[in-house]
């Protein structure tokens, strides 16, 4: 059990770091594509957690959820890119700060 030598905290720290990178991306960037990537990062951060805990507890449920999240992420990317395409068609840019007309 090589893996067992790595304590759970390490995984958590890694996952938190990846998640923060994702959030940082969302909070600071304006390009919708970067948004999409950041969201992917955050989802994968969650995945790391799920899998790490699944391993830690010896319970496969977490891994199943990880698979679900991947599928979901794929679907999300498909829809997300579709939205971005429409966004570009309507606003001539993929800058998310410009598309504010849905607010009220």
């Amino acid at each position, binding site marked *: 059990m090589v893996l067992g030598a790595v304590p759970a905290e390490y995984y958590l720290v890694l996952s938190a770091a990846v998640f923060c990178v994702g959030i940082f991306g*969302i*909070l600071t960037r304006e390009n919708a594509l970067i948004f999409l990537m950041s969201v992917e990062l955050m989802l994968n951060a969650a995945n790391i957690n799920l899998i790490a805990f699944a391993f830690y507890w010896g319970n496969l449920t977490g891994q199943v959820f990880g698979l679900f999240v991947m599928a979901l992420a794929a679907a999300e990317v498909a829809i997300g890119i579709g939205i971005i395409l429409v966004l570009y068609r309507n606003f001539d840019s993929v800058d*998310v700060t410009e598309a*504010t007309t849905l*607010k009220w």
Partner: protein
Amino acid sequence: MAGVFAYAPAIAALPFVSFVVALLAGKYMPKKGALAGIIATAGSLGLSIAVLVTVFLGETYNETLYTFVGGDVPFELTFGLLLDPLSAAMLVIVSLIAFLVHVFSLGYMNDEGETGLPRYYASLGLFTASMLAFVFSDNLLMAFMFFELVGLCSYLLIGFWFRRAGPPSAAKKAFLVTRFGDYFFLVGVVGVLTTFGTAQFAGENGFPALAETVLNPETTADAVNTFGFEPATWFAILGLLVLGGVMGKSAQFPFHTWLPDAMEGPTPVSALIHAATMVAAGVFLVARMYGFYALLPTVLAVIAFVGGFTALFAATMGVVKNEIKQVLAYSTISQYGYIMLALGTGGYVAAFFHLTTHAVFKALLFLGAGSVIIAMHHNENMWDMGGLKDHMRVTYLAFLSGSLALAGIFPFSGFWSKDEVLYEALVHGLGGSPLLLGAYAMGLAAVFLTGFYTIRMVLLTFHGEARSDTAEDPHGVRWNVKFPLAVLGILAAVIGFLNPLPIKKLTGLEVDFLHQFLDSGPEALLTSSHHYSGLTHDYAGYSVGTIGGGEIVTLLAGAGASLGLALLGAGLAFALYRGAEPTRHTEKLGGLQTLLMHNYYQDEYQVWLAEGLTLRLSGAADTFDQGVIDGVVNGVSSVSLFSGDRLRRLQTGIVTNYAALIVLSLLVLLGVFAALGGWF
């Protein structure tokens, strides 16, 4: 003869039918409903006379006929008939006057080509029906209900000529002022019902009898609910409340202001209102429940003073008026003051006697005035008349008979009744109730003024030279005007002999028929006049006092004083206004004349109460309502809208901002959990 009582409800039902007929079919009928009214009132008159005869023969009737509300209630509300000497006599008076007024209307309305006659005759029929039903009511609630209907009909009739501005306003005023009085009356009715559990006028279970048992220290009575007051105090309050309605309808000070305005109505209506229906209803009510008032010395004193004061007060205003109907209007107020004076001083019979004679001579005077008005092409100003006696003989003679009766000149009817009223006030004042002498003095002073304004009116209208073109060639009148005048003219001269008290006292002959009649009837009804005098003696402390050499001297002194004053007033008027071209002496009164012409500014302050005060208050209430109350309601909605408007600005539409908010919230939440969970 007692079987006639079974038909007694028809006395009121017949005019009611004429109301329905005139309303629905009047415009298709030959005289536009008049015939229905005449037939109906003639029927009522016949039935009333039959009832009177039956009552005279010693039968009375006091039955509940219809239960208005029954079942599981604390007290039932019922309709019924009370036919005793008082109501039987009043029924005859009312139906007689109503009948004559209907006949006269043929001349005054139909012959003059008025429109809207079905409405007129319908209202007249309902008016008569309500008054008759009021008269034979056996309880206070029923009396109140028909009292109100009388008010409605007077509203409709005073406002008959609704196309002009004046009549609707006068009608409104009449209804409102009397309604103000009726408000107190209704409180009184509710009070009487809740206090005694009954509102019956007569019999052992009537409320006057119950009140007597409560007040009588010798009997132990079932306790009545006096709402925490001493019984005597509470009864006095109830008596005063009911009196409010009486003063409103009978136009007693300060509720008299509606009556002169009511002259806007057609003259036959004025005759009916003043002589037999609306105004008479008030004082009749006091007579009807005299068994209750006789127990209440304070209320009696109030009645006496209101009456005496009104008699004098109204007479002063009558002195300066220029329209014939205005003079008559103020004389009505004044004469009803006398009736109140009599009631207040224990003169129950005297009051009804004066009510009777007044009904006759006042109906006569109004119908006579109506005849004059027809002749003058609806000009009512006496200064445009003059010399009419040569053109209208019947009217003049009848009018003169009525005027002499009004002035109280021997031997016309008014003399006998007014004399008896003053006599009652005098002897009871002397007999230990000196306060009443004050009311007596006012009544006596009014005699002089009455004599003055009456003769002034006659002289200005009928004597001297014609002062206008119409007066020189007046419009003729037909039989339908002359017939009622003739009937009433004769009655006004002779009806005083119903009850010539002085003759009885002087000669010992039993000629006081009205006294005997009102004293008859079964003891159990408790409505006989000796029962009432017993009550005023026991509870109000009224006893007969005399001056000098006893009753005869007092009687002669009183009669002499009133006759002398009446003659003095008449003589003064004669001296001032005789001759071909009388001058306007009232102008010499200066400021006093202005005051009198403005009726002591009574109308002004009452209009101020209505328009200046109430209307302004309601305007302020409206402003408050729209501004503050509705303002709060709208304010709540504005605050919601405003805060929503501000809050929605959080929703910028920029995804980054939402994400930042989410992150921040998460951090805050973490911080809170950390602080509460003790992670540090």
